[in-house]
């Protein structure tokens, strides 16, 4: 059991800076998801924690011990790789016992450990099969078994579910979560799938271009994104982000959108008239209003899915998405007004993207 301390970690590949001074603390026993678009540095950070990547600057501590200069095997970690990285010429038993074999553990100890791990993962009947004789989900379990056998302080997962089909992915997601609840080992999980991150993790860390944009509880990120990047990244379909300028009309503030139309400003926003802002509103927090409203859009596509209806609208050239759980009688080319739920409006400064409410 151990917490992970990451202090101002910098990683350069030649001229390219993959990590620009990342700091975070991962509490003991927690499940942290690193999420972000391709090339944001999440895998580099994971490999740096693992020790497979030498960092250019900064320090990494696991369980209070500085591991920055240690070999991966001396960091007391285990990693599950995207392609599982099972040794194709070893059977399941040998794959799981390889680290112990290298450490010259006695056969009886290997059997005991492998037996325990394979029991947890339901692999007991497959111990003498080769990886190629297993299904994708079973290979995934062997990869986790190999990690469990090492009995590490920290589990590292590098997009372990992205090679599975959609159905199996949901299933394995649940298994990983159950495994964590059972073993309570500090886990770091890299994914580009925000649903995976939200469902699995206690803490989600959103990364972009080598920096941490925001870290927090999944719902906190959803409810109060710190900047437009997190706002657009978390949630599917993504938040509508409309640029505009603040106007005042008596006591009431409102935002005149660049694309045309005016939307009301919620209370307690620290802005002044004339400020450029980004107006963020999630599709589920928009309602259709009458055509006499201040922002009127034209319906371009309607997607009924039974439980909810997704409506894509054209607001003078800007696409806006609206999601309603009641069945809307709308057809393409209809014109409707947009009514935002003021409690769920996010206002960001246009220049540096900081949250203003």
């Amino acid at each position, binding site marked *: 059991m151990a917490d992970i301390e990451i202090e101002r970690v910098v990683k350069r590949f030649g001229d390219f800076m993959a990590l620009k001074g990342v700091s975070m603390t991962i509490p003991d026993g927690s499940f942290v998801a690193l999420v972000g678009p391709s090339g944001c540095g999440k895998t580099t950070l994971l490999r740096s924690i*693992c*020790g*497979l990547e030498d960092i250019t600057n900064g320090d990494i501590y696991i369980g209070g011990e500085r591991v920055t200069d240690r*070999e*991966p*095997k001396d960091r007391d*970690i*285990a*990693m599950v*790789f*995207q*392609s*599982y*990285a*099972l*040794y*194709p*010429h070893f059977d399941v038993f040998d794959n799981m016992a*390889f*680290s112990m074999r*290298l*450490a010259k553990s006695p056969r009886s100890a290997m059997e005991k450990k492998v037996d325990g791990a394979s029991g947890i993962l339901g692999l007991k009947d497959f111990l003498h099969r*080769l*990886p*190629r004789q297993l299904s994708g989900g079973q290979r995934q379990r062997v990869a986790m078994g*190999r990690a469990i056998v*090492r009995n590490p302080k920290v589990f590292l997962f590098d997009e372990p579910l992205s090679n599975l089909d959609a159905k199996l992915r949901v299933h394995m997601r649940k298994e990983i979560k159950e495994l964590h609840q059972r073993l309570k080992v500090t886990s770091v999980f890299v994914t580009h799938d925000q649903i995976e991150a939200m469902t699995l993790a206690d803490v989600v860390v959103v990364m972009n271009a080598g920096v941490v944009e925001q870290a927090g509880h999944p719902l906190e990120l959803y409810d109060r994104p710190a900047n437009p990047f997190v706002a657009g990244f978390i949630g599917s379909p993504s938040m509508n982000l409309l640029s505009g300028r603040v106007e005042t009309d008596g006591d009431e503030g409102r935002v005149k959108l660049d694309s045309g139309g005016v939307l009301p400003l919620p209370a307690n926003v620290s802005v002044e008239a004339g400020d450029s802002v980004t107006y963020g509103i999630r599709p589920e927090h928009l309602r259709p209003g009458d055509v006499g409203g201040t922002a009127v859009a034209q319906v371009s596509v309607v997607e009924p899915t039974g439980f909810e209806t997704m409506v894509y609208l054209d607001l003078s050239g800007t696409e806006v998405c609206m999601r309603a759980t009641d069945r809307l009688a709308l057809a393409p080319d209809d014109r409707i007004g947009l009514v935002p739920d003021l409690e769920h409006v996010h206002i960001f400064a246009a220049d540096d993207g900081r949250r203003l409410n």
Partner: protein
Amino acid sequence: MTDFDTTNSPPRDEVRAARRTRSRELWSLVLLSPVFLLLTLIILLPEIWALTISFTNYRLGEPVRNVGLLNFEYFLTDPAFWNAVWVNIKFVIGAVTLQMVIGLGISLFLATQKFRWRFFWIALVLAPMAVSPAVSSVIWRYLLDLNIGPVNYLVEMMGFERIQFLTGYQVAIFSVIMVEVWLAIPHVVLFLYPARITFPPELYDAAEVDGATAWQKFRYITFPLLRPAFFLSLVFRLIITIRAFGVVWLLTGGGPLRQTELLAIYMYKEGFENWRFGSAASIAWAMLVITMLMASYVIYLMYRNSFSNVGREN
């Protein structure tokens, strides 16, 4: 015109389907026949011809007479034959071992190290293959020459005595082995380098996390996975090296004092210096049998050890 539609439809009954299968098989045989014909003409017939004359006293200008196993008895009791066998064993063990070890080393180096102009270096390693063995033998004979060779010039410059690379009693065998190795390395690299670059790098990351040292990664991962390619390359090199002739013939002609007289050179002399074709043919057959036995054994090992438990996919 009216039948047009039915020509593309599947056969209506089994008889028709069977007939079609048979005609297809016949057609594929027809297509393959030129290769069979060619192989028969250039391999099978000469071998049979050689086997036939190995039981005769066939030599130029004399009537052909059946002599039974006399040719075999003749060479088996000839000390020069046993000398050639011994030289051949030294040559094959020395050359093949060095080829495989150096070829493996170069392949792994090229596949795993980061350096500039990778493809240039690969091309450079493969270059000896592009040169005709006869030409490279002549070049090497010049390079290693006692009096005018640049290698001996360097040796002298470094303050040593000139070395009789190709004429020294003890040295010549090492020289011909070195040249043979130099020529064969590209062939080994051509087998092993492409195999090595297909291994996923994550496998080595996983091994690193599991605590494997560089040697353990080679011992437990690289070599077992490379084994099919390694054995295949080994079979080829064994077959080619056992029959080696041209390079050594051009470098030393089998000398000095038969120190580099390989079986093939012994056979060549028997046939084209002593003009005893019957005897030469019997030696050729003996070589064929030895080569086949060795190659079969290695192929047996290869199938037993490699293909039974090494998968290609991850």
